[in-house]
């Protein structure tokens, strides 16, 4: 069963947070939603998770007890211990043997020695890992993770992605949003959002191939409005293509697609 949204539009007053976005989430696959701040990632994921938000378009999702969701902020109860957090979440999902379900996940995330610690006393990375463990406890059909790695150190990010990979291997359809484009390389499909609209979607290779024009690496850009720094050098988007074009990264695609969108709207 493929879950997801089709032609989803969400408006908050006069602001359109998401406009005509479609996203498919398939079992055994990780679908990444990438975009900058205010791109509409959180709104899209919240609607998919079943949070009551007025919207247009269709949403296809499993019943609530088969969804696992980690919101962008929180996701854990700070004044409960790790074990109590999992006991509550497991109880809500009616997991028959919470301890047995939690043990391998706690081991994998390195949280096993801290089950008696208050969630509020954990580091940011450990709290995010706990939130993901809680959302995976019942082996959901659809796992929705809103920026699970934001503000997390590289080691914990790696742990989290291993966990995400394990969920997909186990059969879940995973939708994960991220502002870190390098992470999206690990996903089966990528949807690039910009100001609420889907600029491009496909496998990471398809997304890279969709770059309009070329990206060149230069010491001094010809047009600074189309250039961004990377290390000591500049990367510049050339809409008409260039023989000096380099293999684009997902970040290049995101920036170039955003620039193309802005230039088209002028």
């Amino acid at each position: 069963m493929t879950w997801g949204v089709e032609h989803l539009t969400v408006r908050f007053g006069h602001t359109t947070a998401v406009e005509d976005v479609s996203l498919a989430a398939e079992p055994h696959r990780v679908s990444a939603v990438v975009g900058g701040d205010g791109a509409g990632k959180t709104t899209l994921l919240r609607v998919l998770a079943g949070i009551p938000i007025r919207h247009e378009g269709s949403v296809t999702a499993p019943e609530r007890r088969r969804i696992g969701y980690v919101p962008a902020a929180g996701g854990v109860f700070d004044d409960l211990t790790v074990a109590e957090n999992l006991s509550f979440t497991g109880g809500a999902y009616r997991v028959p043997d919470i301890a047995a379900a939690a043990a391998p996940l706690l081991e994998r995330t390195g949280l096993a020695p801290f089950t008696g610690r208050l969630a509020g006393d954990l580091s940011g990375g450990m709290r995010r890992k706990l939130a993901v463990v809680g959302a995976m406890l019942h082996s959901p059909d659809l796992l929705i993770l809103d920026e699970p790695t934001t503000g997390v150190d590289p080691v914990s990010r790696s742990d989290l992605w291993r966990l995400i990979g394990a969920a997909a291997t186990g059969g879940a359809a995973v939708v994960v949003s991220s502002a870190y484009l390098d992470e999206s390389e690990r996903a089966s499909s990528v949807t690039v959002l910009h100001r609420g609209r889907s600029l491009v979607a496909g496998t990471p290779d398809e997304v890279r191939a969709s770059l309009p024009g070329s990206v060149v690496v230069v010491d001094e850009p010809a047009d600074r409005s189309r250039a961004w720094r990377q290390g000591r050098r500049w990367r510049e988007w050339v809409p008409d293509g260039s023989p000096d074009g380099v293999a684009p990264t997902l970040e290049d695609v995101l920036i170039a697609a955003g620039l193309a969108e802005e230039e088209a709207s002028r």
Partner: protein
Amino acid sequence: MKAMILKEFRQLRRDRRTVAMLVAIPIVLLTVFGYAASFDIERIPTAVLGPAVGTTNPLVDTQPDVFEIVHVDPAGTADDAHDLLRDGKAIIAVVTGTPTTVYVDGTEIFAAQSALRQAGSLPDGVRVEVLFNPELSTANIMVPGLIGFVLLAVGTIITSLGVVKERAEGTIEQLAVLPLKPRDVILGKIAPYFLVGVLDLVLITVVGLLLFDVPFRGSILMFAVGGLLFLFVALGFGVLISTVSQSQGEAIQLAIMVMVPQILLSGMIFPLTSMPLGVRWISYCLPLTYFVQIMRGVFLKAAPFASLTIPYLILTLMAVAVFALAVLRFRRDLAPTGRRGAAEEVAA
């Protein structure tokens, strides 16, 4: 420092609720409470009973403007006078005859004191008897009211903080997507506060009885029903406040705005009879007003249910209305989008 002052003013300007608290509310409070905060008794509802009701009345004639006759019954007896005072239909009852007896409701402490001052100049042979609170003890009338105040504080502030904490920490979103029915979330959230409230009700009543020697003359069942009804109102206010507050600070501000009028206008401190009608109607909209009437009736007057039907009825209606509104608003935050199974949902 200039930058700091400017920053504070900018933040304050955007915090409309605090600005309202600082500017508008003090004016409203001063006006309302200025009228309400009065111990001066200008009107004492008085009943005149017995065979000589038509003749000169030794007490009423001293200050006819103050002793407002609300009930006249030539066939009335001392028992009728007792019932009228117990039911709150009069504060003074003069039973004419031989001897003429003036009964005073001791739970209306200021009115009773005023009447007793007049009684000093009464002719010989007129007997004065203070009922329900003969020693005119302040503790006797304050403790039953204070029970309501404590329940209000626990129910409203603690509940609103507990619920708004979920919103502030982002965990309410977590609750919204868990496969729990909104009803389960609401009841699960409120149940601990309800139990704490019940424990507080028992605890402060026992301490009040033991420490201040307050009499308890009425029915425990009526006391329990009144307490639980009022607890529902207080919890309802707490949940209601949490649904319109984004932070614990906002919740406390609102809880104070709900509590202060009840403390000052409910009759717990200032007698309702001293308040001008323009302010007194507010008192009749406040649940603590009815709780105070019920508790004083149960503790001091051994009032039967029939004499407290109206306060019980109003408190029940308030409990149902406030609690239902609170649950509906809280439910709105939690309601799922109505999925059933793996159904496709198309929202308008």
